């Protein structure tokens, strides 16, 4: 808890000090890229602990979909997906930390909204996950839909889009609730399971993990059907560094396109010799696509080789190869009726 407070204070103080002290202008030739190369690792802001997205395992190694995107960027930029330093952040810390340069990229279940895009001085890559506000209740309350939640106490993280979505949703249904807003993720989840709250609300994709791993008896809890908002989660970077923004964007597309063209971490070495120009331009030997981003020619090859395509990333963290076994839903390729659409890499 102390450490957490310290991180938060450093984040905010760092930001404030940063804007006070930084020189009023800077050169536009990829400051983030230069800093990352000099440092030899990427500072990636991730969630404090959300199953499927980012959670430290028993060895303290971070795992999750958000984590895999940090690794993908490290593989493309530094040549090694392990050259990432994960910095766990609360919902309140994340934006000041990114703005102040404490982290290079924010891969932390962050919903893109107009306000965040336009007034925080940030840019967001293509969504890496689509979800919406979800609710988990104890079955003993007999609630099965949102309308049953009148008068409920709801645990929620501060400064999240969820906080606003609930307010809007309950208002539209003319029902009341009482928010309990706790910044520390563990404390917030703990408050729900100790029955301080009747309901826990967060991005729906985050709920099954808590149900499975944090509940004494997972069967006592129910995730309400339905998704109650649009939450496109994407990687955030600072505005004004177009090169870095482009890298984030195209590394994300590599994972989509690799799935579309059937390139996996297992077969990427053979696929390098494929005659398909789409594949050649992406992972082929000596392709010039990386150069245009300021990277070398093996950038996309390393992303697929070391981290995998989107399907592999999803299956590992949410799908059949994970304990969560969450169906992909809209997080499928456009060719399968989903929302993932990788722009052409050429």
């Amino acid at each position, binding site marked *: *808890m*102390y450490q957490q*407070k310290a991180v938060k204070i450093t984040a*905010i103080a760092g*930001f*404030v000090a*940063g*804007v*006070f*002290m*930084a020189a*009023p*202008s*800077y050169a536009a030739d990829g400051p983030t890229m230069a800093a990352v190369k000099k440092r030899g690792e990427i500072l990636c802001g991730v969630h404090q602990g959300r199953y499927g997205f980012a959670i430290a395992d028993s060895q303290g190694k971070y795992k999750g979909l958000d984590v895999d995107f940090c690794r993908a960027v490290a593989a493309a930029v530094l040549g090694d997906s392990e050259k990432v330093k994960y910095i766990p952040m609360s*919902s*309140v810390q*994340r*934006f*000041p930390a990114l*703005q102040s340069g404490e982290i290079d990229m924010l891969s932390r279940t962050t919903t893109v909204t107009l*306000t*965040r895009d*336009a*007034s*925080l*001085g940030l840019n967001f890559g293509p969504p890496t996950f689509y979800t919406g506000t979800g609710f988990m209740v104890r079955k003993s*309350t007999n609630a099965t839909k949102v309308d049953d*939640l*009148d*008068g*409920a*106490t709801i645990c929620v993280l*501060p*400064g999240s889009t969820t*906080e*606003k979505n*609930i*307010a*809007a949703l309950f*208002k539209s249904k003319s029902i009341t*609730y*009482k*928010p*309990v*807003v*706790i*910044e*520390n993720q563990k*404390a*917030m989840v*703990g*408050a729900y399971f*100790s*029955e*301080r709250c*009747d309901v826990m609300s967060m991005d729906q994709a985050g709920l099954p993990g808590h149900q499975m791993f944090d509940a004494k008896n997972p069967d006592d809890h129910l995730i309400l059907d339905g998704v109650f908002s649009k939450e496109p989660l994407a990687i955030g970077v*600072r*505005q*004004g560094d177009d090169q870095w923004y482009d890298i984030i964007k195209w590394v994300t597309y590599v994972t989509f396109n690799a799935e579309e063209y059937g390139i996996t971490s297992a077969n990427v070495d053979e696929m390098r010799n494929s005659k398909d120009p789409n594949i050649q331009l992406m992972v082929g030997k000596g392709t010039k696509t990386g150069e245009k981003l300021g990277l070398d020619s093996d950038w996309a090859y390393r992303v697929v080789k070391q981290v995998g395509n989107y399907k592999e990333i999803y299956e590992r963290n949410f799908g059949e190869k994970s304990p969560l076994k969450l169906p992909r839903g809209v997080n499928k390729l456009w060719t399968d009726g989903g929302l993932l659409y990788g722009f052409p890499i050429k």
Partner: protein
Amino acid sequence: MTLADTRCVPQSRQDDCSSMAQQTEDRFKVSPGPGMASFSLPSLLYSSAVRGVLYQAALLLLVVACGYYLYENVTSNLESQGIATGFGFLDESAGFDIGESLIAYDSANTYARALAVGILNTLTVSACGIALATLLGGMIGIMRVSTNWFAAKFSSAFVEVVRNVPVVLHVIFWGAFLRNLPGPRQSFSLGDGVFLNNRGLIFAVPEYNPIYAWVGAALLVALCASIAYGRYAMRHREKTGRQLPTVLPVLAMLTGLPLLVWASGGFPLQWDTPVFRGFNFRGGSLLSPEFIGLLIGITVYTAGFIAEIVRAGIQSVPRGQIEAARSLGLRPGWIMRYVTIPQALRVIVPPTTSQYLSLTKNSSLGVLIGYPDLVNVGNTTLNQTGQAVEAIAIMMTVYLLISLTISLFMNIYNQAIALKER
């Protein structure tokens, strides 16, 4: 140097003479008034008063220049990073709800109102904390000097345990403790219409009746009358040496007048009793576990310090004072009231002021357990709007204002009880 040294010959060494006279003036008056002696530049520079003003002016200029430089830097940096600036966001709709609020608040209200809710919550918990910490600390402090073995040992154990554990842990401990009470269905029933569960302390409150406003007014009138009577009694004693009865008449006034008004309305009393329905109790009044946890945490912690201050204050009164009072034949109650307490307060009040200040600032730890105080609402605002500099500036300013106000009132009180030198 004596005054005689300043007598010098005007024609021959005018400059030295005036500067010498000036120096002598300085010794005796420190700040020479305008038009005194004849000024010259060196003498002005050597005057400690003038130099003091110059240093102050230079420092002020430096501070202002630094402030301006920082402000300019912040604005241009935020602009170049494309981050919104200014306080315009305060008028925007906040869009989030707040768990507990003293004023009507709804997610459609503005950020300004949301912050006001946070400020009021901070003030509530701080005011309750100050009152309770003073009571508890005072009690424990008196027990510390008690001759009763158990009282003395218990209170010193309390002080040592409480003030040697960080306040953060106090707050987290009580927050977690209350959160792990049984749920609403299994709540503890503490008497009629009072329930304690992990949703907080829920109790019945009288339903509003217009007569209550008049009862309140009657209480106010009785209070004023009591004060006036007390002053009259004191003057009477000073004039005649005879003590008028004060306790009974004051009590009679304070209870009788409001009761009379209440009776004139026929004793209307309708209880709003909490009833379990759906998820939770409806009706009645609620103190949330976050509020209670934070309040207990900061109160107990600060009470440990206040207890030591009170003990020091009582022990600072020389024994001779009390013995003298006794030999004058004063009653023990009067000795406490007129001899011990006034002298002890002089020692107690200044350090207690700083305890009040730290209690108020420690209330910001409510954010750890989810009490919607200024920092909690400020953090949400900061994150929803992304305007960290403004949000933090608002929080800092508010805490500064609250602290300065507490200091002001405590300083006034301190002056009122300070030793009156004649």
